[in-house]
């Protein structure tokens, strides 16, 4: 009999308590971020610097060293290079990344000497076909970048290279000014 009453009392009090917890949620803000259209800032800007989104390549500073292709465990990068007979420079003929297959592991970006291949904070790539997910970066063969001993002076390439270097450096140790996961979790 005592157990009987105890059961009733326990049930009543615990349900009472549970109800009070859920009721208190009416006074809390919802946590939803109204992606895509009702956000104060684009969602990409809320992502941390290290976010491993789609890969991008700055062909201006790619040395054609194939380090990234070799590092990828699942062969989703294809680079084809050719020595140009006349200029003696290296031409990159193909630079394809299969984003449908990629696992966004970041292993390819680590060995890149210039930070040419890097993750962006882009992730919206839904499409009706798979073919469109292969990023073909090269339309026409481009000359591979040759690092200069004295540092880069070409006004076009320099900022890009600086970005790449910064990427390498700051990925591991981002400075405070690197955009962080702001505006979330609030």
């Amino acid at each position, binding site marked *: 009999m005592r157990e009987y009453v105890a059961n009733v009392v326990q049930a009543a009090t615990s349900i009472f308590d549970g109800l009070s917890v859920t009721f208190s949620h009416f006074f809390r803000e919802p946590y939803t971020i109204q992606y895509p259209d009702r956000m104060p800032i684009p969602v990409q800007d809320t992502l941390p610097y290290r976010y491993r989104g789609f890969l991008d390549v700055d062909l201006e500073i790619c040395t054609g060293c194939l380090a990234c292709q070799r590092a990828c465990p699942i062969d989703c990068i294809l680079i084809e290079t050719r020595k140009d007979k006349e200029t003696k420079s290296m031409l990159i003929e193909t630079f394809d990344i299969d984003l*449908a297959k990629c696992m*966004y592991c970041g292993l390819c970006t680590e060995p890149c000497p210039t930070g040419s291949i890097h993750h962006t904070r882009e992730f919206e790539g839904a499409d009706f076909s798979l073919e469109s*997910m292969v990023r073909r970066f090269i339309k026409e063969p481009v000359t591979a970048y040759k690092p200069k001993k004295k540092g880069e002076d070409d006004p076009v390439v320099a900022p890009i290279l600086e970005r790449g270097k910064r990427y390498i450096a700051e990925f591991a140790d981002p400075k405070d000014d690197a955009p962080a996961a702001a505006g979330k979790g609030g």
Partner: protein
Amino acid sequence: MSLVNSVPEMVLTTKVDQLLNWTRKSSLWYMLFGLACCAIELMQTGGPRADLDRFGMAPRATPRTSDLMIVAGTLTLKMALRTKLLYEQMPEPKYVVSMGSCSNCGGLFQLAYSVCDGVDKVIPVDVYVPGCPPRPEALTDGLILLQKKMSEEKWLVRPSAEEAALLS
């Protein structure tokens, strides 16, 4: 007696089609079909932050009441046959979203002996969402794309000769 695909194109039928498409896309009920890691992101997408419910999308347990199959995760060969069966058991109209590299094309498990390289080998896919796993917003993006596609469909209108030829 059904009006589907039997009415000539005119303003009224176009309007009706628009209405039909609106209801369909506003109430996409997806079948719980989490297979692997992407399933966690699928749950998170249904969770408080991304909240698919905003668009009227609700999870369903059976194929019978679902409109959409979100294939979230690695499709093994063992599972592929079941997937096909479940897809077939969904009533028309039905859509498939392939979520993540694995179900897109096998992804990193193309190396595996037991994985079906891509869900499109077993069932037709409407939208592919890249990512491994795609973050909830990416999936939402894919679903919005699907909604776009749905809003352009024609139901009542009798398909023109070339369309019919294309279909068959």
